[in-house]
């Protein structure tokens, strides 16, 4: 065996790579469980690619067949129900894991110097995930698939001058139809592989600068770190176990919990369901889109810009945060802002889930008011984080010298 490895290593240094980047890769010794979510995301990506590949072997992208073929997968294909339910629920769990992963990065300042490029690759992955999830949701060709596709592709029409032509180009027709379904299938197949490639870049960027840690301080000597294997391999596997228990509870006992009943109605271009909602993971952004309705004919474009801006602003986060301290553990004001931001995102999700003209307190308070307020708070987080750090308003607590 060692002779074979010697022969290989002389030609391709596999052992050296595994040693330096995996088994003996130095990792901060104080990582907490929030650091499990990166490897969890990789696990879900692998589940999604595996189930997706085998679903594709049974699926047909055709406006007249796709709805039926999904039911054929559910009823006739051996374990087709398992493949599909794992894939559909996997999308939801992917976003859950990734949202925790992003929020962990925001709380412990993992986006700060020197990890900006690592952070940007992450946002690019997140962005491509959203595109992939959106196009995948179209494929069963139910009512929510169809109208979700109609609403989201129509966002492009807000672009001045070229918008209308652009939408027709994306559709390949004058409405969402068969050509749209076909190209979405092709792209839904391609994008996860691109995501996989960017994940490798993400890991490269991570290994170039090494992991951040809950204290947000640089490592000083060998005593601060432990080898990735066995310490973090075992911890990651423990996380996988917990994750799979929860994932399987949904796949086997509540497979339709995250799915919309309306998507079990075949797509009908002549009738929009009374209440269309995106998948839960898009709801906060959907609420931001809808909250801009007070600018007359500019509302549409402004809503789209606000929604896209809500993600794009993450790119400049490393430059907005000017604190000398990375981790919010030692930043009392930032910590409070962070939790307001988290609650705000959940409230935005709730607003997005409800109909546009819904009210609470017997009509006294239209939800749109809450939506606008929460949109302001969402962007306010980034402004205030800049303000309290750039203007030296926040006094940070003493930071330990070493971990």
């Amino acid at each position, binding site marked *: 065996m060692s002779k074979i490895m010697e022969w290989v290593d002389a030609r391709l240094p596999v052992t050296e790579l595994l040693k330096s980047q995996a088994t003996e890769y130095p990792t901060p010794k104080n990582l907490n469980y929030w650091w499990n979510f990166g490897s969890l995301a990789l696990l879900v990506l692998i589940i999604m690619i595996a189930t997706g590949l085998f679903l594709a072997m049974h699926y047909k992208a055709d406006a007249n067949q796709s709805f039926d073929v999904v039911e054929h997968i559910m009823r006739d294909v051996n374990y087709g129900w398992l493949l599909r339910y794992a894939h559909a629920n996997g999308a939801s769990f992917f976003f859950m894991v990734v949202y925790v992963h992003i929020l962990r990065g925001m709380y412990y300042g993992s986006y700060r110097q020197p990890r900006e490029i690592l952070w940007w690759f992450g946002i690019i992955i997140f962005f491509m995930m959203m595109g992939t999830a959106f196009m995948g949701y179209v494929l069963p060709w139910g009512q929510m698939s169809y*109208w979700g596709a*109609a*609403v*989201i*592709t*129509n*966002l492009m*029409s807000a672009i001045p001058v070229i918008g209308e032509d652009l939408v*027709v*180009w*994306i*559709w*390949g*027709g*004058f*409405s969402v*139809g068969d*050509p749209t379904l076909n*190209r979405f299938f092709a792209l839904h197949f391609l994008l996860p592989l691109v995501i996989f490639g960017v994940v490798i870049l993400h890991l490269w960027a991570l290994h170039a600068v090494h992991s951040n840690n809950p204290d947000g301080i640089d490592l000083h000597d060998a005593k601060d770190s432990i080898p990735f294997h066995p310490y973090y391999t075992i911890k990651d596997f423990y996380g996988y176990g917990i994750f799979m228990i929860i994932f399987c509870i949904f796949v086997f006992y509540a497979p339709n919990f995250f799915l919309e009943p309306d998507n079990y109605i075949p797509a009908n*271009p*002549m*009738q*929009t*369901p*009374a*209440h*269309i909602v995106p998948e839960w993971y898009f709801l906060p952004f959907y609420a931001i889109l*809808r909250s*801009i*309705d007070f600018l*007359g*004919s*500019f*509302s*549409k474009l402004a*809503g789209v810009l606000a929604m896209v801006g809500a993600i794009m602003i993450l790119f400049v986060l490393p430059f907005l945060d000017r604190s000398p301290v990375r981790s919010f553990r030692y930043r009392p004001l930032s910590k409070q802002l962070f939790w307001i931001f988290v609650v705000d995102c959940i409230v935005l999700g709730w607003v997005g889930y409800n*109909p*546009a*003209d819904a009210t609470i307190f017997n009509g006294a308070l239209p939800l749109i008011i809450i939506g606008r307020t929460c949109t302001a708070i969402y962007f306010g987080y980034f402004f205030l984080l800049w303000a309290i750090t750039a203007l030296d308003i926040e006094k940070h607590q003493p930071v330990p010298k070493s971990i």
Partner: protein
Amino acid sequence: MVTESDESRRDFLTLATGAVGAAGVAGAAWPFVKSWSPSADVLSQATTEVDVSGLAPGQMITVPWQGKPVFVLRRTPAQIEAARKADNEALPDPAKDADRAKKPEYLVLLALCTHLGCVPQPIGTGNFGGFLCPCHGSHYDTSGRIRQGPAPKNLPVPHYEFKDEKTLVIGKV
């Protein structure tokens, strides 16, 4: 020995090669880009004929045209009256009702909300006696004009003609 003229000659050649290469890539990309535009069979679905003789006043039907829903409403005198009255109000997208309905009795609308393309609900569901888009709460009046909500424009009136008393042709022949 490399002279200054050699260097500028090389710069020129590098630039020229780059430019030709870029033009070549753009040219090669064009068929791929263009393949996404509507194909010939999609473009050929031009017109839809509708028999409107069976419509009672106040009745509305939805017909498909180029894969999109079109509302055909036979308006009641009250609905026409309401639409004309609003002509002089401050409208987000000003238009006269007379310009939107060739025959005042028949209102023909492309039933896709100008906000994000949902199909509005039938006549009488929205404020102003018109159409409500359920997705994001846009209200259109009895002429299909936007009155309230996020939509920027009135519901478009597709090109249509009355071939005879009872046959409506939607789309350009």
